[in-house]
């Protein structure tokens, strides 16, 4: 009880900054001790590359949550976009042949579809004033269904030759750093700058912390909100562009539970679920923590795999305990 909060402020802020980093470092140390390959180039690359999908999405989610919103539809949106992209590209092969243009069209489709889907969520939320939870729960069901329907219940596979051409987008890179990592890093960089140093980032935090105040301060609340959802949609599109070349397929199982992982990453990173404060670099750490847990569990086998989920859950809670520790008393 007690007002307390105030004097402790500087210390607590420091803990919330160090907390997630500390958790990450602990995980890395644990990993390195348990398995010598853990810090090997290959494993590090693998982990970073596979973090990229959730990571890119989670950066967008950071803005949405900071502005007081939520988006449950990102996972199925990704699946739908992947499906659409594959269908479009396959259908263009007969007329355009296998070549870079088809892939570029596919990428454009992904970006446009992502943007459109994000705008749609945003418009429903801001214009009709429905709770984001409900709107995106609805669109989550809709996209998931649509991809199942597009795939006739099965899997949509990218034309084999096209896939070979497209694969370097996931597996290739420059200086040994693969594209997903590079794109992820760029998205994070841009996200961090936008959040910290642009009017848009300020507005998101203002809206999330008190919508009324933002409105009375002449902030275009609805437009900023809409833009957070649109940006998230676009980022889902980008994530999908990286995802499709990996296995060249999309099905109703694609992107399952990505929304939960993305939201969890955002919150582990120190962004406040009710909005008003967001931290892009924290989100990155959140994503890495989540991916690392899975990686560690695969690299070691001292427990029944049935219990993986339990360990994962426990580590997530512990990671957050670390950073909230200052608040405890």
């Amino acid at each position: 009880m007690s007002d307390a909060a105030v004097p402790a402020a500087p210390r607590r802020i420091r803990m919330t900054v160090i907390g997630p980093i500390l958790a990450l470092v602990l995980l890395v140390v644990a990993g390195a001790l348990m398995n010598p390959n853990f810090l090997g180039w290959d494993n590090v690359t693998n982990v970073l590359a596979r973090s990229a999908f959730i990571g890119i999405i989670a950066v967008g989610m950071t803005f949405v949550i900071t502005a007081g919103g939520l988006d449950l539809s990102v996972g199925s949106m990704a699946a739908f976009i992947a499906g659409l992209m594959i269908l479009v590209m396959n259908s263009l092969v007969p007329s355009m042949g296998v070549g870079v243009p088809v892939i570029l069209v596919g990428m454009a489709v992904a970006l446009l579809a992502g943007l459109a889907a994000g705008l749609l969520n945003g418009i429903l939320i801001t214009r009709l004033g429905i709770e984001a939870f409900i709107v995106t729960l609805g669109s989550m069901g809709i996209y998931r269904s649509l991809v199942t329907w597009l795939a006739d219940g099965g899997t949509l596979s990218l034309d084999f030759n096209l896939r070979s051409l497209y694969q370097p987008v996931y597996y290739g890179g420059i200086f040994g750093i693969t594209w997903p990592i590079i794109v992820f890093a760029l998205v994070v960089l841009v996200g961090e700058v936008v959040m910290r140093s642009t009017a848009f980032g300020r507005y998101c935090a203002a809206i999330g912390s008190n919508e009324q105040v933002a409105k009375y301060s002449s902030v275009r609340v609805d437009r900023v909100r809409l833009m957070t959802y649109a940006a998230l949609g676009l980022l889902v599109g980008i994530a999908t562009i990286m995802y499709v070349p990996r296995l060249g397929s999309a099905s109703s199982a694609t992107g399952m539970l990505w929304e939960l992982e993305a939201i969890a990453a955002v919150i582990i990173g120190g962004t406040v679920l009710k909005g008003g404060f967001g931290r892009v670099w924290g989100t990155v750490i959140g994503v890495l923590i989540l991916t690392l847990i899975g990686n560690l569990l695969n690299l070691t086998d001292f427990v029944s795999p049935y219990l993986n989920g339990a360990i994962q859950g426990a580590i997530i809670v512990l990671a957050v305990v670390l950073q909230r520790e200052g608040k405890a008393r």
Partner: protein
Amino acid sequence: QDGETKVIGVSIPAATHGWAGGMNYFAQATVDRLEETYPQLDFVLATASDPAKQVNDIEDMVATRNIDALVVLPFESEPLTGPVQNVKASGAWITVVDRGLSQEGIEDLYVAGDNPGFGRVSGEFMASALPEGGKIVVLRGIPTTIDNERVEGFQAAIEGKNIEVLGMEHGDWNRDKSFTVMQDFLSKHPQIDAVWASDDDMAVGALGAIEAAGRDDIKFVLGGAGMKEMIKRTMDGDAMIPANVTYPPSMIATAIEITAVGLVSQAPVSGDFIIGSVLVTPENAETYYYPDSPF
């Protein structure tokens, strides 16, 4: 025939992974076709994402659609046993597909795959393909009884064959999850001779990871369930995919078809109909290749 419309309820798990997707496709296609063929038959097709939802579907079919026959592929055996028994008590015909109920004698017709057999055939192939023995890793499905039966069958078959299982992790019959797990297996084990992916979706994921890592110690990946792309590769003599083990999702079609025939013609169709798991090799692959199927 009295011209009266009869209703057949079909209740199956939703298409949450490749095999189930194929099964969904075959169910839908068969229903569409049979509705054309037999105007006096009406079908209700419901897909469920968990056992409780499946029980709901079946209850609804009885309460609101007065079904005369039920074709059910139980999500899980135990929870569906009671409800299906209730349907039986209402006088409807019962066809059970793939997973037997936990009590004997409820179903009129049983069309099933053979899960222990699937594991056994896979294990036997593994043993024969690695005559000197070797180190393998295993990708398992979603933790379920089916998966347990398959793995037990597999382990029994490689017993004493000098095959060392380096690790088993759940790939959840999912390509992405399997890709990740396989990547980590590759980081962890410098030498892997073969992979039992136990399902073609998981095999696709595992192959992706192996290819990306550029590892050449892995001699082959054994999937299962006969996805057309994989059968094709076996047929074409791809050394990485020397074989497959069938577990046809089309068994649902067989079940619906037989049930429909039984309902319109009163031909004797009850009994058990076990579809064994067969080893597909380059020699016989053509027989199992259905290019039009989505799976």
